[in-house]
């Protein structure tokens, strides 16, 4: 425990370096803005802005992107409450009670509760993160290629078992992401693979950012254009010190349920397919279950705003736990962060703790600071963020499209990748309209090369015997859980039929 406190102290000092503090402020502000805009969430912001992080050292870069992630979780509530449109799917549950409160002229009360609850969720989860990360990373050091592969199978199985989407479409999404990751030079034999039409641009493979920006930049904006047609109405927010002070007193009504929701949200966030959206819904459900007045939920109960916000913030920190300790992302946003770490020359996984402690503990330290910074920024500038929402969509959309184009060009500096990004964006839009989940594809393209390498190394070691995955206790456990998870929807269906 003492060692953890010493390392955390060093991490906090690292996070307080001027460049890192600047990144925290910038990231939190950008995250709040991105989260507040309908249709845009942390994943869009992180995907679109990752290319510009080449400007700073890796620690500052991950701190910047993690701060965006954090800020966006706070910001999602702003549009849920004032527009009635969730800033991101993670803030869907915030609309249930946030919108009625805004319609009753209490938008400021709802926004304050959202900010304070996000802070509670963030604080509880970052403490849990600090406690769980080092032992998990130490445990993961025992993993060899079979365990690594089994862990990735487990990550993909959670999408099938817990994702809640159409199963064949989810499987298709995972597999196409993995196939796209194989394009280019084979990592073991060095032979070119799947080079369509002998186009040389495919030789360097498909950078995960090309798919991520295509889907979460171009595809998402086209989707938002369809959903909103650019027409939204903003509820006005009146804010003053007196009102803020009065609103802060509401905390006694929701501190208990938000704390519980935060802990649950954290653990839900660590599961790859679950993430912040189900965490916020579960937290909302818990608050309603334990409420003395459950009937008031959905009609403007302040605890109904606080609970999902605490849950989604806690889950966002939770999703970083498997990313940092195991090299398995817990959400689409952390999948992109993980890809970024590979670009910066780091190998995500347990060795990060021993090889780059300043990076890991700097990130953990920054989470504590970012949590406080986002709370203060949020409370101080709520009217400014609300004002930004009045920006016409016809200004926001071209800016995002342009950032996508230059962001798609930056990693490899070829127009080939920009065209691919555009194609992925359009294809992602059409697939999404038919309920094909796109997040598994992004996770798969990031994990694809690691999964293939560990599979081939394992098979080579066992002379082609696939039983290697069930003969070793750790990998056998992961595979068993993966099989159970993959079969879970079938069991659920059979139980429903028999009932």
């Amino acid at each position, binding site marked *: 425990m003492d060692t953890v406190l010493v390392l955390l102290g060093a991490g906090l000092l690292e996070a307080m370096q001027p460049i890192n503090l600047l990144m925290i402020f910038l990231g939190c502000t950008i995250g709040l803005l991105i989260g507040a805009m309908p249709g845009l969430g942390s994943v869009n912001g992180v995907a679109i802005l990752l*290319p*510009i992080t*080449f*400007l700073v050292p890796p620690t500052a870069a991950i701190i910047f992107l993690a701060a965006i992630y954090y800020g966006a979780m706070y910001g999602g509530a702003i549009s849920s409450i004032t527009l009635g449109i969730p800033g991101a799917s993670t803030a869907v549950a915030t609309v249930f009670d946030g919108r009625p409160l805004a319609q009753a002229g209490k938008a400021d009360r709802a926004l304050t509760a959202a900010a304070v609850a996000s802070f509670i969720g963030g604080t509880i989860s970052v403490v849990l993160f600090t406690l769980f990360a080092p032992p998990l990373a130490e445990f993961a050091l025992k993993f060899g290629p079979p365990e690594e592969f089994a862990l990735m199978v487990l990550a993909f199985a959670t999408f099938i078992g817990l994702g809640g989407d*159409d*199963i*064949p*479409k989810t*499987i*298709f999404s995972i*597999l*196409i992401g*993995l*196939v796209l990751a*194989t394009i280019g030079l*084979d990592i*073991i*034999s060095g*032979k070119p*693979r*799947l080079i*369509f039409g002998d186009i040389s641009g495919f030789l360097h493979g498909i950078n995960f950012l090309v798919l991520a920006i295509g889907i979460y930049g*171009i595809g998402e*904006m*086209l989707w938002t*254009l*369809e959903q909103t*047609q*650019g027409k939204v109405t903003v509820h006005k927010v009146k804010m003053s010190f007196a009102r803020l002070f009065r609103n802060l007193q509401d905390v006694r009504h929701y501190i208990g349920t938000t704390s519980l929701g935060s802990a649950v949200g954290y653990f839900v966030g660590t599961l790859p397919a679950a993430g912040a959206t189900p965490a916020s819904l579960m937290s909302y459900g818990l608050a309603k279950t334990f409420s003395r007045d459950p009937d008031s939920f959905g009609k403007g109960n302040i605890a109904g705003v606080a609970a999902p916000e605490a849950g989604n913030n806690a889950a966002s920190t939770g999703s970083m736990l498997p990313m940092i300790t195991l090299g398995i992302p817990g959400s689409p946003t952390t999948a992109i962060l993980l890809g970024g770490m590979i670009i910066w020359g780091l190998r995500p996984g347990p060795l990060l703790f021993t090889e780059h402690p300043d990076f890991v503990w700097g990130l953990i330290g920054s989470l504590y600071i970012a949590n406080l910074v986002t709370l203060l920024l949020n409370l101080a500038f709520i009217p400014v963020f609300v004002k930004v929402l009045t920006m*016409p969509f*016809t*200004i926001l*959309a*071209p*800016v995002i*499209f*342009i950032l996508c*184009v*230059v962001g798609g*060009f*930056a990693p490899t*500096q070829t*127009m080939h990748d*920009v*065209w691919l990004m*555009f194609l992925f964006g*359009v294809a992602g*839009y*059409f*697939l999404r*309209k*038919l*309920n*094909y989940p796109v997040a598994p594809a992004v996770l798969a393209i990031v994990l694809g090369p690691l999964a*293939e390498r560990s*599979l*081939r190394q394992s*098979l*080579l070691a066992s002379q*082609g015997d696939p039983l290697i995955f069930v003969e070793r206790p750790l990998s056998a456990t992961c595979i068993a859980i993966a099989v159970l998870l993959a079969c879970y929807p079938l069991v659920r269906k059979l139980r429903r039929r028999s009932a």
Partner: protein
Amino acid sequence: MTVRTAELVMGILTALASIGLMVKSAELNIGWIEGRGPGSGAWPFWLSLGMLLASVATLVRWFLRVTPESRSTESYMTRDTALAVGTSAAAIFFLLLATHFIGLYASLILFLLFYLKFIGRHSWRLTGILTIAIPVFIFCLFEWALKIPLPKEFTEPLFYPVYDLMYS
């Protein structure tokens, strides 16, 4: 086209794409190479086969009308949606196409003019400010700060005075 028809078309397209990927993977060794493990085509081949099976499952579910999409008789894309989404997609397409001929910055100016003035119907003043400010911001961020040169094609000589200022 109804959502149900679109589901069928997409199922067929994904199945065909999977077969294409299987054929392409099979051009490499998909078997076991002694001392080197699985051939380089094995992993993508089996993944593509999985994609094909998932696509067939979607088509079977379409036939049995299991999913909401396979039952929906709603329009896949209304006229308004096609116009809103299609115009933006076409604008990006021409932005990329024009970049090959006149470079990115000149294309950005045309793209912004079109988007802000003709789609957004903003004032000439706002359109003018943003049409200049956004490419300047992109130039400063990418070329000056990140040192990533963006494509300029035949407009490159126009940037020589700026390069002189940047690197002097």
